[in-house]
């Protein structure tokens, strides 16, 4: 449930209406001027069908300089941002040689492994020299090295499952696995805010897809009951298989899945459950084991656990963990295993070293310190932002905190104003989020120190005052209240 100030909603609709009207007027003029100029493209089909690039051309391009900014260093707590300029209102963006040292509030490196690490990096360089950067073949041909086998064992142990399989790309771990697990005659029930990779995988599988309201176990139960009683469409035979797909942390909302209730419902109705822990693995839970540890769910209750190594482990790729039979089946059916190039060996070594650091097997307590620090940072930052009056989404302990902006004009304003003060933030708008609910998403990491967080808070507060996004009204400062009480006495 998001609380929207009514005036902000009205202003947002009006702004989008205005932007659409201007876009259509410009398109009209473009059509008129194009009538006069001839082109020699007879017989060629158009690249875009109908008006499907309208949003891209008329709305996204106006604020294109806030997205896809190139960086010139590793994405640690601070990074070097390359400055760009445009002479034709963002149609082309040219890079300059100037760089800007900015505070990084947008990277997903929750445990700070994106920067060179004293334990991981020497080992990665060793494996680079020993195993070369790429295996140049698929897992079944010549691409399985000892590192891959060791990595799968480590991942399975870390999660408490019987076995695991790893892939070179996180997105493909979803979109190539779902078609293999379920097909026509099956039912997929997915959360309404699931990631694009899950949606693509579900569409590619050919199963019937139903959606339940985000994080609402009661609605999931309603949908399950309705679908089980109706059976397959048209024939009304019972479903061959039902899979419920949820995510650990939803990256646009920052809120945790209500896993205990959903697992209970799935057990009751005998549906399989597929948990995508892309953002939550390594970042939450007492020892970093993800949302199961945080919410006290037994990993044995989850049938398929999926995750990616891109966020907390500072590498690339994804994994699926489950029972031995499941992984064996995936190894001989999944196209990502049979045909795609296997994970790069240094990347696999980075993950193995990162897991060892997190579990403390490197001999230090740096892993536990990192996990504690990211949790403290997230809770501190979130509570401070809420005290200042911003509307921040997400649950406690989640390192992802979106700040609501709503109005389309505030999206580039927030991004550019923060950049002027050397704080780099990520802003998200339609169509990744619903039309009304544009937001700025802050991702904290264990490598942020308290001073950096305070500086970021100061900058965000100033920009927030300038833009008027403190929708909830700041709480009065405590010492002012005490002074007033002292004066009365």
């Amino acid at each position, binding site marked *: *449930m*998001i*609380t*929207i*100030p*009514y*005036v902000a*909603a*009205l202003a947002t*609709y*009006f702004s*989008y*209406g205005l932007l659409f009207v201007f876009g259509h007027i410009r398109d009209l003029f473009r059509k008129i001027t194009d009538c006069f100029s001839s082109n020699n493209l007879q017989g060629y089909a158009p690249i*875009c*069908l*109908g*008006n*499907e*690039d*309208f*949003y*891209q051309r008329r709305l996204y391009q106006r604020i294109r300089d806030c997205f896809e900014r190139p960086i010139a260093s590793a994405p640690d707590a601070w990074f070097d941002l390359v400055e760009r300029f445009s002479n034709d209102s963002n149609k082309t963006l040219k890079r300059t040689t100037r760089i800007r040292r900015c505070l990084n509030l947008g990277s997903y490196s929750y445990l700070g492994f994106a920067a060179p690490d004293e334990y991981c990096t020497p080992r990665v360089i060793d494996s680079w020299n020993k195993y070369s950067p790429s295996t140049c073949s698929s897992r079944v041909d010549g691409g399985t090295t000892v590192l891959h086998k060791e990595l799968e064992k480590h991942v399975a142990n870390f999660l408490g499952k019987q076995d695991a399989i790893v892939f070179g790309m996180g997105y493909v771990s979803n979109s190539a696995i779902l078609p293999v697990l379920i097909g026509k005659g099956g039912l997929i029930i997915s959360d*309404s*805010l699931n990631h694009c990779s899950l949606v693509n995988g579900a569409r590619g599988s050919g199963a019937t897809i139903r*959606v*339940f*309201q*985000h994080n609402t176990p009661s609605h999931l139960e309603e949908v399950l009951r309705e679908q089980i009683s109706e059976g397959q469409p048209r024939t009304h035979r019972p479903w061959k298989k039902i899979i419920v797909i949820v995510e650990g942390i939803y990256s646009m909302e920052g809120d945790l899945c209500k896993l205990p209730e959903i697992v209970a419902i799935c057990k009751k109705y005998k549906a399989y459950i597929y948990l995508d822990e892309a953002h939550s693995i390594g970042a939450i839970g007492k020892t970093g084991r993800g949302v199961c540890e945080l919410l006290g769910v037994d990993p044995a209750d989850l049938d398929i656990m999926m995750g990616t190594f891109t966020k907390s482990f500072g590498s690339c790729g994804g994994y699926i963990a489950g029972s031995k039979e499941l992984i064996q089946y995936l190894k001989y059916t999944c196209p990502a295993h049979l045909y795609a190039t296997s994970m790069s060996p240094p990347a696999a070594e980075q993950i193995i070293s990162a897991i060892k650091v997190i579990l403390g097997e490197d001999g230090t307590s740096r892993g536990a310190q990192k996990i504690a620090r990211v949790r403290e940072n997230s809770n501190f930052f979130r509570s401070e932002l809420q005290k200042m009056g911003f509307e921040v989404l997400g649950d406690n302990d989640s390192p992802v905190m979106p700040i609501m902006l709503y109005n389309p004009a505030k999206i580039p304003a927030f991004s550019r104003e923060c950049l002027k003060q050397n704080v780099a933030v990520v802003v998200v708008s*339609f*169509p990744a989020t*619903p*039309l*009304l609910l544009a937001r700025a998403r802050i991702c904290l990491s264990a490598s942020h120190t308290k001073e950096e967080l305070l500086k970021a808070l100061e900058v965000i507060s100033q920009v927030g005052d300038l833009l008027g996004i403190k929708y909830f*009204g700041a709480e009065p400062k405590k010492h002012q209240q005490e002074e007033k009480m002292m004066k009365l006495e």
Partner: protein
Amino acid sequence: MANLYVKAAPPVDLNRNTEWFTYPGVWTTYILILFFAWLLVLSIFGCSPGMAWTIVNLAHFAVTYHFFHWKKGTPFADDQGIYNALTWWEQIDNGKQLTRNRKFLTVVPVVLYLIASHTTDYQHPMLFLNTLAAIVLVIAKFPNMHKVRIFGINADK
């Protein structure tokens, strides 16, 4: 007024082109835009209030007919073109007929027609144009007209 908050549950509508219409505040914005458009027309043309309402009614007819019943598909490419044969009116509420949003959108042209014809004292030619606008808009919104293309106008190739 500044402290009025509304709660919005994220809707289950997957079509990003139409799900913005399910959030609170849309109806109010629509009515306010019509009202301010009337004020704008009055100040630019300096005509009588009735003429201004007629102009707003006809402009509303042109704009809503074009965007609701003529343009098909969605303005972005993310949904891979599954709605390319449907106009916006056919897409809202996932094609379900006679929902609250559809009833509201059907009532607005009728109310505008009543206001415009009343304030012009039912004189021709404004009455004829207003009636034409109201009839076309209301017929286009009938449940029986769902996915109907008369004489193949605006059908897919």
